[in-house]
């Protein structure tokens, strides 16, 4: 929480996010929290390949293809 009690939500994607993507993500986040109380930050990490990682308070929502591939790799090992 920052000084105005808003929670910082960080988006990490392999490409810069488009407005429509941001709106779509916010829309979905609204199902689990009040987006008016959120401050959104963006970060680009090409190693994710695709998808998104959202750091939301202590919560980590990992929807990246890199993690999907890593899980698949662990499953094969």
């Amino acid at each position, binding site marked *: 929480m920052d000084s105005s009690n808003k929670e910082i939500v960080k988006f990490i994607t392999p490409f810069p996010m488009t407005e429509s993507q941001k709106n779509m993500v916010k829309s*979905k986040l609204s199902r689990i929290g009040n987006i008016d109380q959120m401050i959104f930050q963006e970060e680009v990490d090409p190693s994710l390949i*695709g*998808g998104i990682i959202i750091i939301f308070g202590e919560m980590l*929502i990992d929807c990246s293809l890199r993690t*999907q*591939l*890593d899980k698949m790799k662990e499953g094969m090992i």
Partner: protein
Amino acid sequence: MISIDRSIIFQIINFLVLVALLFRFLFKPVVQALDKRSNHIREEMEKIEKEKKAAEEMRLKYEEESKNIHIKFQEMQEIANQEAVKIKSKIIDEAYQESEKIKQTAEEKARIEIDKLYSELKLDIIDISTEMAAKLLRERIDISKQDQLIEQLLEEAIDKIEIKSDVQYGQQQ
């Protein structure tokens, strides 16, 4: 009338006396000496016979002992042969067991090495496959696919979070 010459009578008497003297002083000692010699020869013969008999007994005894020694030698040789066969068999068994042990150890080592190589190969294949998949995905992901991915994956994640929240809420109730 027959006349006898006195000298003949004397000659006869002298002859008889001579015979008597010869018998007394010559013939008897000679006979005694001969008897003594004969006895000595007989004793020597008996002694030789005894010695011959003893020698024969000794020969027989040695022959018997030699026979016994030969039998004993054959028995010992037989025992030695049996012992040699046992030792040979034991050595062959031990060598076989040792070779089996070495073979098993080598097989075990080979199996471990193969398993290790297989695991390494499997990991390499998985790494390569994953990297290839990542490369292919990087080449094919564009804005529209990224939209689909975010839509699909985030939807599933949010659903799971909602279900978890519902469960926790239900447990608190």
